[in-house]
């Protein structure tokens, strides 16, 4: 009984963008985007490179000041960021890199170490705790960056194409690690990527944007986002990838016309 009650009252969106536009000087980057992100959902933002999808992510994270429109976020939502580059401090070992957010928040040393090791464990990187960034492979560096983003247990994780520079195999490994982590912890995840297969594999919903200025052209629910997530097949995934690709290609063709 309580479970049906939970279904009828949808959780309020963790983040809501309404009529958001943004420009850098005279270059229009984002035009009139309205989007909601439910608490605990996984959304992928997809679009041609340079279209302004990263700008949308940065607006959500308040790394850019909002030009026009509104951004609603639950008060004291904690954010975690992972960028295209790992952004590790070369003079610190992995554990102390992961602990940086806690250190800057003033947590005592023993707690920092314990929580950093726990975060490393969640990314299967515990063995590398005392190694330095230059001793890590690209995939391990990215694991460390995600562990750092998660160390303060954020409610929202913003991912700006974190696996874009990795080779195919490593990328799949990290996609899988991220997906398992999200399924276990259910933070709100927003991922910018230009890989549609990656988006379809990781996210519950794919949002497709047009070439610059970024305008929303399609919202596609992936097999993962449907109720019967357990029963979906490879074909469902393929259909979703095709649908998103078609939307993207149509948007590109439309902008050229």
């Amino acid at each position, binding site marked *: 009984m309580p479970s049906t009650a939970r279904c009828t009252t949808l959780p309020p969106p963790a983040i809501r963008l309404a009529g958001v536009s943004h420009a850098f000087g005279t270059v229009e980057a984002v035009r009139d985007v309205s989007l909601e992100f439910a608490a605990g959902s996984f959304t992928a933002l997809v679009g041609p490179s340079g279209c302004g999808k990263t700008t949308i992510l940065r607006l959500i*994270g308040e*790394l850019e000041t909002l030009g026009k429109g509104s951004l609603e976020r639950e008060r004291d939502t904690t*954010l975690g*960021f992972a*960028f295209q*580059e790992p*952004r590790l*401090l*070369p*003079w*610190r070992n992995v554990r102390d890199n992961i602990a*940086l*957010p806690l250190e*800057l*928040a003033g947590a005592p040393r023993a707690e920092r170490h314990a929580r950093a090791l726990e975060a490393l464990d969640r990314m299967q990187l515990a063995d590398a705790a005392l190694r*330095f*960034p*230059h001793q890590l492979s690209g995939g391990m560096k990215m694991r460390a960056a995600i562990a750092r983003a998660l160390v303060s247990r954020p409610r929202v994780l913003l991912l700006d194409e974190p696996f874009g520079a990795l080779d195919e195999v490593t990328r799949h490994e990290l996609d899988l690690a991220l997906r398992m982590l999200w399924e276990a912890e259910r933070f709100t995840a927003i991922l910018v990527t230009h890989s549609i297969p990656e988006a379809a594999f990781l996210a519950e919903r794919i949002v497709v944007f047009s070439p610059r200025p970024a305008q929303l052209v399609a919202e596609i629910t992936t097999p993962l986002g449907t109720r019967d997530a357990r029963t979906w097949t490879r074909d469902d995934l393929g259909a979703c990838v095709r649908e998103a690709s078609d939307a993207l290609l149509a948007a590109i063709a439309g902008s050229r016309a």
Partner: protein
Amino acid sequence: MTTRVRHTVADHPATRLVVPILAAASAIGLWAGIKAAFHISDYLLPSPFAVLRAFNEQPRVYLAATAESAFCASLGFLIAAAGGIALASALSIFRIVERGIYPLTLLFQMVPLIAIAPLLVIWFGYGRPSIVACATIVSIFPVIANTLAGLRGRDAGLEELFAILGAGRRTTWWKLALPSSVPSMLTGLRIAAGLATIGTIAGEFIGSDRQPLGVLITSNLRASQTAAVFASVLLAACVGFALFGAVSVLGRVILARWLRGV
């Protein structure tokens, strides 16, 4: 087809020691050879053996002079290092001050040392104080310039990371800017090590109440003892090498923690 990594002779670790020694030995051989072949007089170019003989006649005098010069060069270098790093830090923290002061620090670089060395004697006193001041003045600018470049040239992505994590200006300086600046700071210190020795010898030319290498050089020049001048000059070069080497080793120890192959 298999590809092979080509190992050249230069990759062998022993070449780090053997090659410089061979190079030095052939330079000395060339020196002796040129002197013999062109019949150059001892007054213009003493033979390597004459230089060694000059040293052997009064080894204590030379070693004491070397110690004295090394002391002044080290002290001048340390003052330049500490002062230069402190000044660069202040300049990087207070941007307004930087606009005013940085051009003034260029003076250290631009003023000809030989021209102001006599002034230094008036200001700081004859002997060690003015010599150390000389060493400091010539060597401080590369420390300031390189440290400042290192403090400013931090990675934009890391800076954004610190901003996101709510780090204040002071925290960002201590935990990001300062560690980022270490490699370029060490470059500045290596340059300063050589310059401090040059400044010391130049300061000693003006005169000293002791008998450092600079004084040995000037007095032996006046006495036309070219071999003794050569011995002193070579020892002065050794002081520079030793100081440079000490800073380089220190740098390797620090940098080994996070950088390869520096």
